[in-house]
Structure formats: C-alpha cells, structure tokens
C-alpha cells in the first residue's frame, strides 16, 4: 500500500471507531454497511465500467440468507455473514453470466430486471422468507450463547468484517486483475486483442462485487435483527448508485463518503417527511448535470493543489 493510502486507511478506521460516539449507533451501523455496499458498486462501475442497477439482489439476497441462518440455526453472526456472502456470490454468478452478454445501458436494465425477479420470488416464497413480514427477531450472537444485542456492541463486533470487505475491494482494484478490469472499461476490444478473455474478468468482477454487497447486506440485516423486502427493492439499487456517483466513481473512498452523506441527509429529512426522494431525487438530477466528477476527485484535486502551491492557501 502507498503511504498516502495507509494514512487514509488509518483516518478511515479512526473515524469508523468514533462514529457511534458522534452519531447514534444505529445510524453509524447503517453508514458502514451502506458504505461497503457502495464500494461494491464502485468496484464494478468505477473500475469495470459496468453499471449494475440490480445490486439490491445481492445486498438483499445476502441479508435474507444471513438473517435466516442466524435465526434458524442460532449461528454466531460472523458465520451467518459469511453464509450470506456466499449466497450473494452464488446469486451473482448466474445473473452476471447472463447480464454481461449485454453492455452499457442494456446491462443496467438486465441487472435491474433480475433483481426485481428476485424481489418477486422472495415475496412469494412466504414459508421461508415471511413474505411481506420479512424475517424478524434475528438474534445477534457473537459466540454461541454470547449475544451482542445492543446496537453499539454489535457495531464494534461487526466493524472488522466491514473493514475486511473494504480491504478486499482495495486489494482487488490494485491487483493485476483490477488493472485488466480498468483496461476493459477503457476499451474492451483492445483488451480482447491483447489476449484477455474479457468476459471472464467481467464475470469474476461481478461475482466479487456481489459478494461484497452480500457481506454488507448481511451485516446490515443482522444488525437490524430484521430482513425485509425493502432490502431487495429497486429503489435500494438506485440509492446505492446515487451514493457512488455522488462520491465519485472509481475511487472506492468516494463511495463511502457518498454513502455517509446520503444517509446523514436522509436521517435529517426523516424527522419531518417520509418522502425523502423529493430531495435525493433532485440531488441526483443535479449531480448528473453539474457535478459528474463527484466529491472525492474534486476534493483530492483541491488538496493536491493546496499542497503544491507555495505557502499553501
């Protein structure tokens, strides 16, 4: 890791540790889970150039699987989260296989449609998923018999999992694999001409990204003791894309910042309206028109310019 990245990581971890003290712990938990979720989308969109509009399938698929595992077998949550991650990857493999047959805007539509299909299936499969009631009263066990039912305790117990997820994403984008992915984003035919089986790279990226989304969703669902259809709704897929675009695509950190900003905003709005989409929708429209670079690239430019100008600014 580069030194500047290590410093950033240290700052990020300190911030994450302090988060439940600054905000309330339920909001802090929401922020770290959605941050990892947004990072998983960025991995695919910012590096692979694939806009998945169906990542709710993996966030929700993982979340439901983890919640069911934790509840049915009274499993410690790290194991349930691992199970949720695996289920999400198992879902991502066939969906990704089909979706990468189309590119660009079609890819977005296809992923969106498959996520909606999963939404209907989970809704109909009431015996297992509880239909519209969802999976309720999911236990939060750290070890068999040792419960971390307070949200603040759970937050610190789950934070390492989220950090591991983030490090994995970092590792993936800075590996040779990640570089091939970027080359596919830039020019797929050229990457093919260089001898890369691009579809294989895209599929692996899709499955890895789905796994990270599943990890995030599992932590989120168990942390809330609840898996509901909201996890799988298409607005969830859209919200996470909004976070990534707001933060700046292809930066990983930006996605985390974007997630934090959107959630803080929604938290403020929720005290006086349940129709926060009026604000978040308008923001997305404004970003796409005026601010396509996103926050992180803009900020890091600013920092760089300030640092390099003599005497600072």
């Amino acid at each position, binding site marked *: 890791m580069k030194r500047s990245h290590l410093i950033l990581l240290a700052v990020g971890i300190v911030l994450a540790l302090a988060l439940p003290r600054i905000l309330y712990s339920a909001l802090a938990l929401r922020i770290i889970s959605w941050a990892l979720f947004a990072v998983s989308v960025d991995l695919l969109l910012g590096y692979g150039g694939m806009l998945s509009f169906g990542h709710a399938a993996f966030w929700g698929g993982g979340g439901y699987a983890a919640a069911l595992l934790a509840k049915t077998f009274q499993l410690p949550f790290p194991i349930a989260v691992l199970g949720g991650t695996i289920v999400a990857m198992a879902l991502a493999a066939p969906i990704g296989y089909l979706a990468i047959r189309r590119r660009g805007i*079609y890819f977005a*539509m*296809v992923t*969106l*449609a498959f996520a909606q299909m999963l939404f209907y299936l989970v809704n109909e499969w009431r015996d297992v998923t509880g239909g519209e009631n969802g999976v309720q009263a999911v236990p939060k066990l750290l070890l068999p018999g040792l419960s971390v039912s307070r949200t603040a305790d759970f937050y610190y117990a789950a934070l390492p999992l989220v950090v591991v997820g983030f490090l994995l994403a970092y590792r993936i984008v800075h590996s040779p694999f990640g570089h091939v992915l970027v080359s596919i984003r830039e020019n797929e035919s050229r990457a093919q001409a260089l001898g890369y089986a691009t579809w294989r790279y895209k599929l692996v990226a899709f499955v890895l990204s789905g796994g990270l989304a599943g990890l995030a969703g599992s932590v989120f669902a168990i942390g809330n003791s609840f898996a509901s259809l909201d996890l799988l709704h298409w607005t969830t897929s859209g919200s996470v894309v*909004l976070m990534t675009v707001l933060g700046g695509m292809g930066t990983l950190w930006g996605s985390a910042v974007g997630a934090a900003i959107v959630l803080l905003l929604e938290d403020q709005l929720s005290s006086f309206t349940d129709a926060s989409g009026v604000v978040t929708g308008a923001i997305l429209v404004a970003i796409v028109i005026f601010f396509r670079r996103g926050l992180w690239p803009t900020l890091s430019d600013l920092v760089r310019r300030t640092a390099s100008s003599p005497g600072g600014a």
Partner: protein
Amino acid sequence: MDLGYLSVLLFNGLVNGAFYALLSLGLAIIFGVMRVVNFAHGAFYMLGAFAAYLLLQQAGIPFWPALLIAPLAVGLGGAVCERLLLRRLYTLDPLYSFLLTFGLTIFIQDAMRLRFGIQGQPYPLPGELASSVSLGLVSYPAYRLFVIAFSLAVCVAVWYVIERTRLGMVVRAATERTELTRALGIDVDRWITGVFAFGIALAALAGVLAAPMRNVSPLMGSELIILTFAVVVIGGLGSIAGAVAAGFLAGLLASVGAIFDPAIENVIVFALMAVILLVRPAGLFGSQEAA
C-alpha cells in the same frame, strides 16, 4: 380447466400486454431517436393517470376528453424535461441520462406522494363501457376489450407514421445519421424534443387507460417500468414492431403462466428475458449492432 376460464385468462394477458406494448413503444421511440433509456417512463404513466383523475375531480372533465388532454399535458411536461435537463447529456454515455431519469423518477413519485398520499384513488369506468360483452363462452368487461383494441390501433398508427410517412422518414434519418440530416437543413433538435414529448405522451395515454382499471396512486408505475425494461430487452430496443410484439407476448405468457401457478405470473417475464439473453442476446427483433 374449462375453456371459458382459459379465454378470460388470455384476454387478461392481452390487456396487460396492451400496457406493456404502449410503454415499450414509447421507450423504443425515445431510445431510437435520442439513445436515452427513459427510467421515468413509469412515472409519466402515473402522471397520466393522475392528470385524468384531476381533470375529473377539479374540472369535471370525463374520460373521453381526458384521453386526449392528459397525454398532451404530460407530454408537454416531458418536453420541458428534455429542454431543461436531458439536452445537456446527449454527448455523454447514455448511462448518465439513465441516472438522470432515475433521479427524476424518485423525485416525481415522492412529490406526488407528499401531495396525494400513498392511498389509491378510484376512477370511474366511462359509462358507455361499464357493461360486459358476451364472447360466446364467457362475458368480458367491455372496457378491457376497448383497452386491447385501442392500444393496438395506437401501436399500428405509430408504426405506420414512423415506417411509412415522410414525417417518420425524417425521424428515422435523424436517428441514424444525425449530422447528415442536419446538413440537409433539418432542425434535428426540434424533432428530438417533439419525439421525446410524443414518447412521454404514449406513457401518459397508457396511464389514462389504466386509471379506471387500477387505482390511481403515486406508485402505480413503479413496478411496471421494471417489467417494461424486461419486455424491451426481450424485444430489442431497436425496432418499433418488436417492442409492440414483445409487449403482447409478455402479457400473454404471464397469463398462461398464471394458469399453472398464480405466484409466477410476475416472474415469468423475467424468466423469458433470461432465455432470450442466452439464445439471442440482441433481443427477438434487435439487430446485433445494437447489442
């Protein structure tokens, strides 16, 4: 399984297909000319239904005039969106306009929710079509038959205009060779606004048709738009006839699926999409180039 029940199911499928066809037709036209996949199509469909509802509530204007006025009004709103927002994105990756229209969708939906609440509002059937028609084996609501016939007529008319008239020729030329069309002295930008407004008006028309059958509510277009995307992937966005055919096909197939298990009615359209992606990724009527 008796034949009467079967034919009712088939007609229901055609009714659903009529809505898919009108919506995917609008999507295909907009995509053809602008390379924009309009996520907000479902929201404009909902606005069409609300326009009809408000015309009746506020001004006492009944269904038939509303069938004309509501699409015009919503189409005008679409033209404003195109001029103010979408216009700025044409030189960019289509993903940006997709994101923009997604933002627009949640904005419109939640704005309507703030104003009208989540509860659906009933809209009366037009008096002339409130009865049922005997089809030999069974009787079927006259209004639903009207929906099938009317949307088919609209689809055929649109197809005719685009494929067989001078107007359509200009639109197709602007689609395929924008620069060349400009060089021939045709104001392409003006056509683009008009075409977008027309596509939106088709969505609003579907909304007005839906109002007497389904409750008028802010979320009525929210799931429909995703199903329509699946339909569009099945048909291939490149062709007008393909969009319409895939719409009716999806509607029929979903009803037939419901014979075996009502739970899979929604899922079956997506399953068909998966099959199409496997065997013919460009869509039933799509050209490979568009893939």
